[in-house]
């Protein structure tokens, strides 16, 4: 496409807004992979499950997306806690995380994706609300509400998780799990319980991200694969366990993708996140905010 500054500025604004949503997807990976050392590649599967739950809620009960978040995110939290219990019992306890655990998550990813195909089919599904249809614009820059709402909710969620982890006792035990499990035991906290709660939060954020996704665009089951790359690229680029890093990396990826889409076309955009991931792994595996 012909180069012009209007396009560049529009792409950067779109990218920043998109980045806020990406942060909501990646925060769960930052918690699970970065802090708990659980390589949950099934995270995008939980996200897509959230998107289809929102679709189902909207079709069946006429749920507004925010009602869907209020109903399904707590269920996701409880599911995540139970899921971690099972994962701990079968893999962490045996010390089988690396090979069997990875294959396990890969299998879960696959089961969720095919399960959704079997239930809902491969057609694109979407939800609409009147307030999502309008667009706000300043000068030549315009942003639709269906992008702005996920951006704001994503940032809000990131902020709440950050405050929870840094200000509450349970939150701090979660941060401590990634650093020194023995010291945590000495102060009388249970590391398994901390990890269980943290994984519950990670799954709940995935469900919220899914609802946000179906606000932004129509979804279909195989969309998970693109988001594995995005979530892990952001997590690694951000320094794996850093929440501010996650935000900065999300914005970088969002802008990079928006510029690529504007000037080279949307068919190149999946390569951006994976390219960024490979480059980070090669040149700076510690990430920009890494220790």
């Amino acid at each position: 496409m012909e180069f012009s500054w209007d396009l560049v500025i529009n792409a950067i604004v779109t990218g920043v807004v998109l980045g806020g949503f990406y942060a909501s997807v990646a925060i769960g990976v930052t918690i699970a992979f970065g802090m708990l050392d659980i390589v949950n590649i099934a995270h995008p599967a939980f996200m897509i499950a959230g998107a289809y739950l929102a679709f189902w809620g909207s079709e069946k009960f006429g749920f507004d997306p925010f009602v869907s978040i209020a109903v399904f995110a707590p269920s996701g939290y409880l599911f995540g806690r139970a899921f971690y219990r099972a994962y701990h019992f079968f893999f962490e306890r045996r010390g089988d995380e690396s090979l069997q655990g990875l294959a396990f998550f890969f299998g879960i990813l696959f089961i969720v994706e095919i399960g959704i195909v079997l239930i809902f089919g491969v057609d694109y599904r979407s939800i609409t609300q009147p307030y999502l249809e309008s667009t706000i614009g300043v000068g030549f820059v315009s942003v639709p509400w269906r992008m702005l709402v996920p951006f704001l909710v994503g940032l809000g969620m990131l902020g709440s998780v950050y405050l929870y982890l840094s200000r509450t006792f349970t939150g701090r035990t979660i941060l401590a799990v990634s650093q020194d499990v023995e010291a945590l035991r000495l102060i009388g906290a249970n590391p398994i319980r901390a990890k269980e709660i943290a994984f519950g939060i990670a799954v709940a954020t995935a469900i919220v991200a899914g609802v946000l996704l179906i606000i932004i665009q129509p979804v279909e089951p195989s969309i998970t694969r693109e988001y594995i790359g995005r979530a892990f690229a952001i997590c690694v680029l951000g320094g794996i366990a850093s929440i501010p890093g996650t935000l900065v990396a999300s914005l970088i990826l969002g802008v990079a993708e928006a510029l690529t889409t504007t000037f080279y076309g949307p068919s190149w955009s999946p390569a951006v996140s994976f390219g960024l991931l490979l480059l980070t792994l090669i040149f700076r595996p510690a990430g920009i905010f890494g220790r």
Partner: protein
Amino acid sequence: MSGQALSAPELRKPAPVSGRSRTGLAIVLIGVVLLAATMVLGSHIGEYYYLATYTILQFIVLGTAWNILGGYGGYVNFGTAGFFAIGCYTTIILNKIFPMPLLFEMLVAAATAGVVGLGTGYLTLRLRGVFFSIATLALAIVLQTLIVNWSFVGGARGVYVIRPAVSGIFVSYAQFLVVLMLGLAIFAVVVAWAVEKSWIGIGLAAIRDDEAAAETSGVPSLRLKLIATTMSGALMGMAGAPFPYYVTYVDPATAFGLAIAVNSIAMPLVGGTATWWGPVVGAILLGSAQQILTVTISSAANLFIVGVLLVVFVTVAPRGVVGIVRGWKRGRK
């Protein structure tokens, strides 16, 4: 790196194991019998059975190749479909610019996929194992995006491939493909067996159990992992090379199919990852089950079942069918 290389020769002398070459000979003999049977039965077998057999043999190659790095070394490769597709598209590109017999195309495919494996490994195998896994996932998607945007090889729309005429000794092209794939499967299994019994396999097993300890005791871990990644990638590429002639129409969605990535991980894990025959057992069991299910139910449902089996096996029976059989034998004694 140089310190590792110096201590390597000690590993080159594995303890003599009695009856070692007998197993290798047995694999080759079984293979020759199967080859002869395919040639003799010839036109008495329907086309469908050839195509079904081809798919199962292809998965024996992919599962075995995956297991060389994943099972022996403990490094999970999620990008099997990427290496497989490199094989497919090598054939397609060669067909367009410089047509040659399929056997040579397979060798070029092996070289290309092997080099890609070596490169990916060189860049990411110094990091923790998970990073390699994530990078292989990334590699497959980057390659797919490149192919989708490359109109010379058909882009997203795909490309038709015309089967060449088949030479006199074969009754049909399908039979030729089965014979070829059977040969490749035997080759792959013999390679896996040889690796498992050699100093490479012993070193890889040490890496899988405790990489830091292995490195301290002189195992050249990076070199061994690179050898395994290259061999594994090359075999996957070889398995992909005849695929365009098998389907006659290739598009990125088929060549990079999720079914390939999932099956090549599920089959070794269901069969058992510690031995060369685990992936073979897994590929035959899962492969034939899928052929039957695809006919009787639907292809989406059978992939669902593969996923469920994978999860059930890694949680309940982490040693796979091989482990179950061994436990059962021990119980009877």
